[in-house]
């Protein structure tokens, strides 16, 4: 095909290879190598994955970064497919809607890492003799970190597709398939991409955490940045931690620059009201490289091929799940986890339960404290930045970068300090949880400040209002609903962080702050799955109750009162 097109001089545009093709070739080649390598590694027979396999040599970092990125990317692909399937189903079918939406609402409020334990059980059972088993457990955890909000967003945006688009599609008799790809997906696209970007931090958080998987009493260390951090932490290697933080930053930068920026530019071309030329070298490559022109010509055929491949994969997944169900009925599933139906084993003593309630209460109070602290520090900061638009424009991308940075990569540094200077973990756990919550609040406050109509600012300045009056009468009411949004997401991040942050380990030494997170983690390491299950349950309960009793009414009030 390529050869043919090169020598077909009759065509209007002669697709001769150019410099862009060279670049494209290098990039496609790299991507291909990475995917192929990743798949090869994942499909290879199971290994031990002991900590000693992880080398702290910095020259291994690119390899580990590659493995982590592959995991992340695979999870996002699965999440996107799930979003399209489940979101569309919920939007199109009343019955499905009534079942799916409440379930996702609940799932969304469950801390990501609680899922990890469950996913380990299932995926290792499914693929006991493949690396895929452990890998899948990690991918599922990452998937859970972002799929729910994506599905909900897609579902909601399908509901807002203008009726005239549907009428138009009926008049021109577009097929359901065409409507989906030409109308529905593009409608959701900008928000969906933004959604993925926002939850990037949460997903990196999950990637880092999910790479070390507790299976029974042993730990599996999947090659990746997360395992690298864990091993470095266990060996007390501060230098390695420093390198991995830098690597992480670099990976996020590249990720943002190569994937999200081009997508945003592409959308800005048709969405922005300002007629300004948006550009990105990747897009230029796509439109200039003649090999892509050829690709575009054969795309319709390729699309059919892709669809066929997807169907094959779908059938395989169905086969696996049927197989799995079969095993489930077979009884081997139950034996596999030694879940002999012994309900007594799942019951815990009253003392344990009392302790559980107590530590959950402590964690909840701590999170409230963290959120109040965030408000105290970041609302004034956000308002200050918001009053200076030039500063805001400069600061915003930096904050976005920082927000995408997974906080748990920074934890070892804090833990080192705690052990080195004998600090009190009960106090120093605060900053660890705070970095998981603060960005949402700062983000939202700045955003709210930037959308205050210019006329209002003119009014208050023409009336010569005092600073405190402007703050009370204009700024605070304007940012209030946004603060609530920030608090809700921030609280979610804080609960997630609790599990990781309350247990301090460094160079083999362990101390912990009181809380449900440390309890859960210790139980997990001791292989006490009963206590893990109870604490997960407890945590979910608190998160959901707080959502229903506090956040939702507060949000509704803020919307009604201030907007």
């Amino acid at each position, binding site marked *: 095909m390529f050869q043919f097109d090169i020598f077909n001089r009759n065509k209007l545009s002669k697709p001769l290879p150019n410099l862009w093709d060279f670049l494209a070739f290098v990039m496609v080649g790299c991507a291909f190598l990475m995917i192929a390598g990743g798949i090869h590694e994942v499909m290879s027979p199971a290994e031990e994955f002991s900590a000693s396999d992880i080398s702290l040599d910095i020259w291994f970092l690119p390899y580990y970064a590659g493995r982590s990125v592959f995991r992340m990317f695979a999870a996002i692909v699965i999440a996107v497919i799930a979003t399209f399937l489940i979101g569309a189903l919920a939007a199109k079918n009343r019955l499905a809607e009534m079942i799916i939406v409440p379930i996702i609402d609940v799932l969304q409020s469950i801390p990501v890492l609680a899922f990890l334990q469950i996913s380990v059980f299932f995926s290792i059972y499914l693929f006991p003799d493949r690396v895929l088993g452990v890998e899948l457990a990690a991918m599922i955890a990452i998937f859970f970190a972002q799929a729910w909000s994506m599905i909900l967003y897609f579902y909601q945006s399908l509901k807002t597709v203008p009726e*005239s688009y549907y009428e138009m599609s009926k008049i*021109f*008799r577009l097929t359901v398939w065409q409507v989906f790809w*030409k109308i529905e997906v593009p409608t959701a696209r900008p928000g969906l991409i933004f959604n993925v970007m926002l939850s990037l931090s949460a997903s990196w958080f999950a990637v880092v955490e999910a790479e070390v998987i507790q299976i029974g009493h042993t730990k599996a260390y999947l090659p990746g940045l997360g395992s690298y951090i864990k091993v470095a932490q266990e060996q007390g290697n501060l230098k390695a931690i420093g390198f991995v933080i830098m690597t992480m930053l670099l990976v996020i930068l590249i990720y943002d620059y190569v994937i999200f920026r081009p997508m945003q530019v592409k959308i800005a*071309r048709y*969405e*922005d009201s300002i007629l300004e030329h948006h550009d990105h070298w990747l897009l230029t490559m796509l439109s200039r490289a003649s090999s892509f022109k050829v690709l575009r010509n054969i795309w319709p055929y390729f699309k059919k091929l892709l669809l066929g491949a997807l169907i094959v994969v779908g059938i395989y997944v169905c086969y696996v799940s049927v197989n799995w169900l079969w095993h489930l009925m077979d009884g081997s599933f139950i034996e596999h986890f030694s879940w002999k139906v012994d309900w007594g084993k799942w019951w815990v003593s009253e003392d344990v339960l009392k302790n559980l309630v107590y530590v959950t209460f402590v964690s909840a109070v701590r999170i409230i404290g963290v959120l109040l602290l965030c408000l105290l520090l970041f609302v004034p900061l956000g308002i200050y930045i918001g009053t200076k638009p030039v500063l805001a424009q400069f600061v915003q991308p930096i904050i976005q970068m920082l927000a995408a940075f997974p906080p748990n990569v920074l934890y070892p540094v804090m833990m080192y300090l705690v052990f080195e200077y004998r600090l009190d973990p009960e106090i120093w756990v605060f900053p660890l949880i705070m970095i998981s919550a603060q960005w949402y609040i700062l983000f939202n406050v700045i955003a709210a400040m930037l959308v205050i109509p210019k006329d209002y600012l003119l009014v208050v300045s023409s009336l010569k209002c005092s600073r405190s009056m402007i703050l009370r009468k204009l700024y605070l009411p304007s940012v209030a609903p946004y603060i609530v949004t920030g608090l809700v997401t921030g609280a979610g991040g804080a609960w997630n962080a609790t599990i990781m942050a309350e247990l301090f380990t460094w160079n083999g030494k362990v101390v912990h702050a009181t809380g449900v997170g440390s309890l859960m983690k210790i139980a997990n390491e001791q292989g006490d799955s009963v206590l893990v299950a109870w604490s997960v349950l407890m945590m979910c309960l608190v998160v959901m109750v707080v959502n229903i009793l506090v956040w939702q009414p507060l949000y509704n009030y803020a919307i009604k009162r201030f907007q």
Partner: protein
Amino acid sequence: MSGSIISIHNVSKVFPKRSSQDVSVLANIDLSLRENEIVCLLGTSGSGKSTLLRIMAGLIKPSSGHVFWHGQPVHGPIPGVSMVFQTFALLPWLTVLENVELGLEAMGHLSVSERREKALAAIDVVGMGGFESAYPKELSGGMSQRVGFARAIVVEPDVLLMDEAFSALDVLTAESLRNDLIDLWVSQKTKLKSILMVTHNIQEAAYMADRILIFGSNPGRIMADLKVDMSYDRDQEQPKFIQLVDSIYHHITQASESFSRIGGRLKPVDLHFRLPQVDVSTLIGLVETLHSEAASQVVEISELAEELHLDLDELFPIIESLQVLRFAQLKSGRVELTFAGKLFADATLLDRKRVFARQLLDYLPIVRHIHKQLNEKGKSIHQSEILSILRQKLSDNVALEVLKTVIEWSRYAEIFAFDVNTGHISLDNPEESDQSASETT
């Protein structure tokens, strides 16, 4: 022979409502669209004419009655019918060319190059050549609608349906687009056999139609079928054209008058009356305009519409509101201020409120009901109580709109106060209670 292309027989449409009864939108309509004619459905908004258009396009199923395409019963969108939308319905993520091609995409039998050729030709026909690679955001409203036309004609339809296709455009743009469409129609460059358009603009109907169907509301029905016997070089200054416009106004006002009067007297409205959504300042504005007109304070409605640059859609609700409050009345095509209207116009700012309050209490049963409730109970009542009364006969959305209007008018008249935070309607002035609250703290 001019056979009928689309015809509908005895079509009705009711929208189901949760509570007591259904809302009837269209009642027993017969209509047929013949070859070589432009038919115009003219009526106010909410009269159901857009619903009728969608039924004829096969987009909505009628509750009863039948739709025929060349004599064959229709179930679902008709292949030979294309449509132009009020909101253009162009996909923002596709270029002009891709948007036009989209119309052809569902026709599987075309190759990529054939599709492109046809789309480019259609874009040229509507005069948008050169804009092929532009995104809709780069186009003005007029240009967007031209692309909408290109997309509609590229599939070579027999019938073109237009749903208020010009109403989102400014006056000049709309006029040039109308002219171009007429030229296209006269030149017979397309395979179009017939056009059916929905509009609330009388001038537009008079300018374009071979046949004008005047549409009445509640429930929607065809009140008159006017044949226009003019060639397509119509001029708005032409006596024949002015005559036509006058006769359209005459038909419309007659429909409206027969609806609001019993035996020559104005009909009193009931508790569930569907009050038009008009704000107080607009009402005052029209009263003042009528007052400053001739000494007789009687104005021909067509003159009024022209002078104020108002569409049917905008003018009629205002006149209806004034009539309900007995500030003015509509009599054989003329608007006339009543005694109360003159009194109101002459009064000072504060006296006006008093006059307005009296008219509200005398002629609007729902306001009288709320006022009575407040006096009897002595304290506030919740808005949901009033809403539930209105919902007995009105749909949820309409009930909410009516309540909003009632609250706005009554607030102006200082009959009662309303607190949006609590949803309470009360007799006391909120500011006073606010002050007393802040004094105690």
